């Protein structure tokens, strides 16, 4: 029943209550260069984003968590939230 979590980013997206298109808009605002379709593929773990793309997506989700009064639960690959 339990499968390896390929869609960790998508779980965070769901938890943050963001639709795919809202997340894409936020990712785009932060300078993200991938299309909405590619973003969905990253979220579902079908293809791996570059470290930079991963961090832009992570931050787009984290900013939503921050707006909701929460922390930044999605880890950055650049280590920014491990400081």
């Amino acid at each position, binding site marked *: 029943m339990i499968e390896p979590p390929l869609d960790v980013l998508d779980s965070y997206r769901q938890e943050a209550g963001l639709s795919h*298109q809202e997340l894409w808009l936020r990712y785009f605002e*932060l300078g993200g260069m991938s299309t909405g379709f590619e973003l969905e593929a990253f979220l579902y773990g079908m293809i791996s984003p570059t470290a930079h793309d991963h961090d832009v997506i992570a931050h787009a989700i984290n900013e939503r968590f921050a707006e909701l009064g929460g922390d930044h639960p999605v880890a950055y690959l650049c280590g920014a939230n491990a400081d």
Partner: protein
Amino acid sequence: MSLIQDPSSFDAITTFEGQDAVVALCGKVENLAASELSAALNATIDRHPTSVVLDLTELDFMGAAGMVAVADAEKRLATEGIKLTVRSPSALVSDLLAMLETAEETRLEVELPEHDHLGPEQQGRAPVVSQRVGSSMAADDLRRLTAMPADPDVVDGALRLIVELARTSVVGADGVSISLQRHGRLSTVAASDQTILAMDADQYSTGEGPCVDASLKGHWFHAESLATETRWPAFTPKAQELGIKAIMSSPLTSLDRPVGALNIYSRTASTFEIRDQEAAAGFAAKASAILSDAQVGVSDTQMAMRFQEALRSRDVVALAKGVIMEREGIDEDEAFTALLRLSLEHGEALRESAAATVRSVVQAEIVRSVPND
């Protein structure tokens, strides 16, 4: 996630106790199996049961088409005056809610064969300091943004399922409804019973109440005990006449704009605990994601304005990255990381850090350009 669909991976087992039917679904209802589910539900309804219980305790997954099949069956049952109850243990509720996201997955499955450029070579692009968005990327996404699956059947089916799940999983919930603003007016689009329909109607007619406030102001409202409630003097006595003692209304948003509310009432005062409040917020978040994807309550003009706003933010971020690249002699990705660290340090949104970075340069330029006396 598997994109291969195996329609034989689920079973619908109908048992009758007298005239009460229980339809137990096991396995995965992939989209291709939806017609099978539809047939099973219709065969059950054809036997004119007095009630139908849809047992999802053994269900692992249901695609969007399966939800539409359930929604259609519910519509048919409603016209024949038969109530549909969804049975699911609370542990499954979260999984089930994840299923509601599958309207999006369906889209992904449909689009996949048309995209053959998903290799890693697509990911590494040349850094651009301040790119203009006349690119096909933005055009594609604009099309996507305006061509989301806004099928009202899927949306309504999903909302009804959320209402039913919230009623069965929020302890102390006696009734649940969803109100939405349509054509500038609030109306109830899904309700678990007549009492909550009457309660919602009382709020629309008096123009006040937790549901109205949550829908219009986008805030969360909890009337712990109507006996001591003072915020809605015209509405509160009407709700009390209906036997309602406590109400929780959580705002629903579509693309960050308040468009409605998820309302839960109880006949017992002070019954909603923290975990119930969190569950309500969770259901509201799921409903909001569905509404956002269907762009419910969002006009083309508003969508265009939101996109313009996104473009403005993107420009500022790009400018700030350019400033940092020039100042620190680093590449674009590193400049983004620097901005990211700045925003985390200051506890502000990244676009605010970006704006401050750009301002600092502009101010420095002004200082430089003022001649010294």
